[in-house]
């Protein structure tokens, strides 16, 4: 790991100022992605801005029918939060199945969503629940946020301050975890909210995506039988030592049906 200058600001404003003043600066929240990246020398920031002391970024609150989760909130906190469990149990379940207990004690929702790893779990929930990502400057709708492989709508120095999830009538997340890393080989988040039905797929492609055909079928009939004949093309899906694109395409159907069944329980 190359050395860097370390900063520990106490407010979002100070953190943003540091990130703007130093063009090669990087924010660190849980460090569960950034530190392994630094160890491999895949990144060489001049400055690391630790969000760990920024109190305003942490915590979970209810606003109307939405659950608002601060950017620095750890996976373990989301998994065990009584408010999340009551409003959107599928989201608590998802958080409780990220990596392992130690990763969940440090990793944060803001870091995960900002990083947009193709195999990360949270992007599935953000898109399926049609959540809104709030940054220090604006609000970004889920469909506008995830742009591609490790790419998001975030500008340089822009920080995720919170994410607001509408309560779901029915929702479930089913992941086929990579047996070594626990990242999603394929994960499908199905949600029925006041705004309609959404099906978001993570792990399978370069970036989270929706399956419109399944959404339309489920809007008419929210049962796994309604989507049993819907297949998705393997074109453009991930293919690696863990599974081919065809295998992943097949898993999308399986995980989607299981998610609908789980949501109906």
């Amino acid at each position, binding site marked *: 790991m190359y050395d*860097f200058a370390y900063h520990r600001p106490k407010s979002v404003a100070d953190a943003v100022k540091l990130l703007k003043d130093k063009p090669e600066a990087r924010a660190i929240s849980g*460090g569960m992605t950034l530190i*392994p990246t630094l160890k491999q020398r895949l990144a060489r920031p001049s400055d690391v801005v*630790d969000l*760990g002391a920024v109190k305003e970024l942490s915590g979970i609150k209810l606003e109307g029918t939405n659950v608002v989760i601060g950017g620095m909130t750890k996976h373990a906190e989301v998994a065990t939060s009584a408010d999340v469990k009551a409003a959107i149990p599928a989201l608590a379940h998802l958080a409780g199945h990220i*990596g*392992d*207990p130690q990763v969940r004690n440090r990793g944060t929702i803001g870091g995960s969503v900002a990083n947009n790893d193709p195999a990360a779990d949270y992007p599935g929930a953000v898109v399926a629940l049609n959540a809104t990502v709030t940054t220090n400057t604006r609000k970004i709708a889920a469909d506008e946020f995830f742009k591609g492989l490790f790419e998001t709508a975030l500008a340089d120095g822009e920080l995720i301050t919170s994410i607001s999830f509408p309560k779901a009538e029915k929702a479930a997340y089913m992941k086929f975890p990579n047996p070594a890393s626990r990242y999603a080989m394929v994960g499908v988040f199905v949600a029925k909210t006041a705004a309609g039905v959404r099906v978001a797929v993570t792990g399978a492609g370069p970036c989270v995506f929706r399956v419109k055909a399944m959404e339309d079928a489920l809007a008419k009939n929210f049962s796994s039988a309604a989507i049993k004949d819907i297949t998705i093309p393997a074109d453009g899906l991930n293919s690696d030592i863990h599974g081919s694109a065809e295998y992943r395409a097949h898993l999308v159907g399986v995980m989607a049906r299981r998610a609908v069944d789980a949501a109906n329980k």
Partner: protein
Amino acid sequence: MSISVAMTVNGKAVSGKVEARTLLVQFLREHLGMTGTHVGCDTSQCGACVVDVDGKSVKSCTILAVQAEGSKVITIEGLAESPDKLHPMQEAFRENHALQCGFCTPGMVMSAIDMVKRHNYQLDEATVRRELEGNLCRCTGYHNIVKAILAAAPAMKSAGV
């Protein structure tokens, strides 16, 4: 960039000068000479480095020493009451032959204690196996590790630790 850090390790106040990039595990091993905490990988996957920071189980290879400033850290060296009185979890590992080479053991024991406490001393086999997700062992096949943890849970409860 050289930075002063101060924290409590196993109840003792410690301090030192580190680089920003110094990992907590490097601070423990190389600055304090406490080599009980191990490093088994570069990818934050193996759990040989698990310690307790302010009551939370963390991988000390994936947190900077400066991020632990002011924290209370507990390592494998801080568990036994005295050289001849092991922590019930350590005792259970010995009783159940839960180690072979011993490389993964410090992290296993630290994760195991955290898991027992989080589950209020009540565990079943499936839970133990799931909770060990972040700890790899290349020798034992896990079987005896799971047995040891299941045996230690009631022992920890009656010992009040």
